[in-house]
């Protein structure tokens, strides 16, 4: 038997669907150019994709046909040589369509395998986000703002080809740089893209992540009943009505916290989170009312606290808030837990203001997708500069 290679690309659904397809297709075509057969496919269970909700693509390559066929007899790979996260906030874990519960981003990595992340963060920040693994693996960063665009207009900022260059560096037995460049020229007919791949190849370095590094939390899981264990008519219980909240200072109850779907929390969809200035809030209700995810808990003092297990970071609350800088969306990499902002504010209002201002002033750059025609043309030069200069 020959050798089987598996690469997974974890991406944010519709926002990165074309990007993920370009990468997995590029890997398979480059391997093919070296005489190795392969197949590129999306995980069926993730379909139909949404924007933001994590999904997966796979590139499977064998050194010969029989090895590939044997490898493809499985529904999807149980271990991979390389995991690619095209958005750094995916390092916090993944709750996709195809899965109930939280999956660590490095879950399928083989010992010594490589995790490639597109990010402007340093390795330490990313390692702290990833769940711990029982054996060492390698982390490589392709520097840049995670590339987001919708289904119809693609942001061609060279993220795809730079990742192909990094793959060639990390796993030369799978594809060499020469084959990658050949495929890029054939597919895109753009010598600059081939150069970007070569620059990424030259610059890619790895950090070894040890088993004692990373997030020690155990990811949550659910054991769901089988269909034959359900009630007649395959009926399932509704969500219970919610309850008023309790103020921890005076133990008075008031406001409302809805019960929420326990088997899908949605927070791993989030790439930005709202931070709320409770001191300037005028209690207009709009963030709470217009939130498509019912993520705001109504507090006993009539404020609105975005519940960080339910918020998926769409930003509508910031858009509808009539007060300047009362609700501000901040890059999710700046946070380490899902704690209640309202409780933090109640405990120490001055400390909360300092924390809040720090988050708003130092928010790392982040872009969600199409806002107006011509926007991507404004954003790509900076990414091309990074591709060129590192």
């Amino acid at each position: 038997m020959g050798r089987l290679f598996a690469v997974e690309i974890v991406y944010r659904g519709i926002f990165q669907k074309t990007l993920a397809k370009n990468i997995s297709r590029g890997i398979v075509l480059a391997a093919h150019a070296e005489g190795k057969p392969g197949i590129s496919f999306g995980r069926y269970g993730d379909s139909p994709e949404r924007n933001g909700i994590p999904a997966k693509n796979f590139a499977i390559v064998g050194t010969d046909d029989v090895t590939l066929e044997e490898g493809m007899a499985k529904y999807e790979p149980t271990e991979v040589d390389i995991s690619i996260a095209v958005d750094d906030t995916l390092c916090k874990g993944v709750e996709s369509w195809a899965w109930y519960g939280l999956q660590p981003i490095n879950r399928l990595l083989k010992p010594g395998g490589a995790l490639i992340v597109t990010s402007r963060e340093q390795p330490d920040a990313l390692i702290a986000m990833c769940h711990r693994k029982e054996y060492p693996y390698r982390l490589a960063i392709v520097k840049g703002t995670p590339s987001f665009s919708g289904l119809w207009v693609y942001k061609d900022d060279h993220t795809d080809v730079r990742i192909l260059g990094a793959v060639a560096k990390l796993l030369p037995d799978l594809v060499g740089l020469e084959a990658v460049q050949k495929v890029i020229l054939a597919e895109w007919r753009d010598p600059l893209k081939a150069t970007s791949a070569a620059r990424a190849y030259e610059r890619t370095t790895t950090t070894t992540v040890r088993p004692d590094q990373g997030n020690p939390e155990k990811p949550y899981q659910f054991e769901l009943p089988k269909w034959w264990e359900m009630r007649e008519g395959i009926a399932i219980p509704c969500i219970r009505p919610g309850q008023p909240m309790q103020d921890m200072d005076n133990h008075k109850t008031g406001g409302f916290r809805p019960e929420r779907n326990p088997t899908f929390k949605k927070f791993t969809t989030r790439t930005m989170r709202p931070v709320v200035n409770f001191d300037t809030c005028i209690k207009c209700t709009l963030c709470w009312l217009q939130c498509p995810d019912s993520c705001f808990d109504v507090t006993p003092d009539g404020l609105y606290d975005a519940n960080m297990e339910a918020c998926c970071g769409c930003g509508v609350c910031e858009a509808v808030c009539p007060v300047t800088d009362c609700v501000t969306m901040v890059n999710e990499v700046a946070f380490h837990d899902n704690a209640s902002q309202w409780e933090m504010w109640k405990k120490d209002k001055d400390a909360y203001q300092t924390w809040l201002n720090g988050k708003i002033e130092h928010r790392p750059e982040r872009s969600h997708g199409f806002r107006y025609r011509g926007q991507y043309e404004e954003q790509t030069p900076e990414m091309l500069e990074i591709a060129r200069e590192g």
Partner: protein
Amino acid sequence: MDTTATVETQPGVKLDPFKGVKKLPLEEFFTSGHRTCQGCESALVMKMMAKAAGPRTIVLGSTGCMYVANTTYYSTSWVIPWMHTQLGSSGSAAMGSAAGLKAQMRKGKMKKEPINVIAFCGDGGGADMGLSAISAALTHPDYNLLILMYDNESYANTDIQLSGSTPYGAHTTFSPPGATKRIMHHRWKKNMAGMLAAGHPTCRYVATMCMSYGLQGMNCVRKALSIGGPTFIHSLDPCPKGWDYDPILSHELGELAVATGIWPLYEVKDGVVTLYGKTKQLAEGQSPRLPVREYLLKQGRFAHFREEDIEYFQKKVDEMWERWLIPGVIPFVKDVEDERISA
């Protein structure tokens, strides 16, 4: 019209209009944890629809995003009872459920009480596949039910195939713009609410809404549920996945659809047409109608438009406002008006 002689309609749930956003009930009947896109306005419609209807409500959902994303295996966001029904059958499911409840109560098998029956469908399930069943349901005056069509202007669930509700020129999986032919979709959007109101004279309430104007939308739902008999609401829902925009724009795009005059807000109650909200301001000249380009160019699905395409779109919307018999509602032109315009 007087149908009391032949029709026996049970009293509906008493639902007074909400007086303001601060008077809204805090309870949610459609809650967090659905697998919709970030910034999904259709999920917002479900939340507000359920909030307006209250706890004594049965919801039936035909296939589409609001079925597939909200209720995956053993997982739900519904607090009130919900059942899936087939793609084209929101009308028949609503009528069957309403008739079943009525019969059970008449036979004493259930406590006699007003229960709301709402069936929702997407534009594919409603304006395309389910049109005949919705039409049939709206001709039966003896059942209390609401059919709510959440229109995100494509079959968005299965990755954006075009529907009868997709606007002119939009990029969809079935209409990708090419180098030779730029506009692959040249049909104009179906006028669902106007068609159903005009075609079903015994239906007492038909309305359009957009949940960027949440309070007005919820009051439409309340009126539809309390007036008695079958009713229909058509909601326009911005869709970040299919329209290709940053989800932070979801709310603003709903407002722009109304402010550009593309999406008129109106209700037809017992045969009387009333424009409401922002649309009323546009019609009365209190607020200028914005150019459609402000709406179109914030969406990737129209990014291939050239000036001539924007001009065509604007011309069609202008026609709707300046030449239609009832602006935004009934697309007929009176002869006298034609003469006046040509003169």
